């Protein structure tokens, strides 16, 4: 089984990379082939909102940069982990730059899911999604927004399962490991 960690931690918070490393260690201990993509080191241009990935080169973004490979890796995985500092309740710009460029993974055509309009699937199976938000301190509202965002993304991107967890900057490695393990258990990745 393959896992991909999309590490959206920015330049000024590199000390938080240890959280990504714990996630990778945990997944590898479960015998998952795991890749940790440090997005701040990858040049990805902003999505231009042209919909070329839907109607010009279906499934492939018109911009020829590293985002194409990131997108290929996302759909080639059984599990993706969004690791991000919780930024006003949402994702960091580093994580979001990759996600904005991945909408070619779904179809432009509309369908209804639970009475609400979304886009149809392009691929038969999309990976499970684990959101790991890093917070400086407890903030209920930001945590609520983050968990809702992960759930909404999972609907729109047709992830086969989703879970979200919050870790704190000052938590020990063991505490972080426990939170991540709980998230993986919720997804059925860990028994």
């Amino acid at each position, binding site marked *: 089984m393959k896992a991909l960690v999309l590490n959206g931690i920015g330049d000024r918070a590199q000390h938080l990379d240890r959280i990504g490393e714990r996630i990778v260690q945990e997944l590898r201990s479960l015998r998952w082939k795991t890749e940790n993509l440090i997005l701040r080191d990858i040049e990805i241009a902003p999505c231009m909102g042209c919909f070329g990935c*839907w109607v010009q080169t279906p499934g492939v973004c018109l911009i020829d940069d590293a985002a194409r490979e990131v997108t290929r890796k996302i759909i080639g995985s059984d599990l993706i982990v969004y690791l991000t500092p919780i930024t*006003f309740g949402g994702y960091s710009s580093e994580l979001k730059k990759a996600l904005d460029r991945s909408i070619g993974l779904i179809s432009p055509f509309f369908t209804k899911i639970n009475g609400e309009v979304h886009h149809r699937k392009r691929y038969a199976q999309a990976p499970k999604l684990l959101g790991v938000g890093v917070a400086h301190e407890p903030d209920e509202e930001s945590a609520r927004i983050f968990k809702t965002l992960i759930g909404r993304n999972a609907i729109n991107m047709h992830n086969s399962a989703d879970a979200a967890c919050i870790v704190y900057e000052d938590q020990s490695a063991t505490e972080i490991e426990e939170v991540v393990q709980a998230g993986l258990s919720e997804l059925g990745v860990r028994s």
Partner: protein
Amino acid sequence: MNSEGNRVLLLVGSPKAPGKSVSEALGSYVIEKMEARGWSSESIFIRASLQSDEGRAALLEGVKASDLIILSFPLYVDSLPAPVIRAMELISALCCKKNARLAVIANSGFPEAQHNKVAMSICQRFAHASGLEWVGGLALGMGGALSGQRLEEQGGMVGKIIKALDLAVDALVNGESVPDEAIRLMAKPLIPGWMYTTIGNFGWRREAKRHGVRKKLGDRPYQR
């Protein structure tokens, strides 16, 4: 409220070129109405401004000098476009003008305006983190039915939008929050939902045909 000397900044969150985005059309309408009420204004395109040190500096200066910031953006993957989040990260690290306020206009390509809800919450948290007073947001669905043309030139369909924006302007120039009636009007479907999705699905096929890929629309280029 005395409008003399008040300054409004429009931040356009769409990555599209000037004159091409719904975000700009909606935001510019508000700005023009506020200018007519004696406010001075500035418009900044976020994606372009982040491409250079000078652009970033101008963005931050613009924010620091404003009494009211209007952020108008398209919904991207349930949230704000990456460059807008980058701008927020930069802005939150500086001191905004005392008593400066933030209002937002979100537009989504889905028929239901409720898709914008998470993005609205993010904007509210951003305001809180940046010392800006949150004065509310307008959320629009069916953004795909609109264009980058001036709002007044987009026909009768946008009547409710114009009414919503007019109500918002009235409130904002008086130092009040975006009224509930404006929020309600903005969220009202422009056309029936089934019609929007039918036209939308037809539009995807037409565009694909134009590019010679009509039969490739369902391709899976990254299939394992």
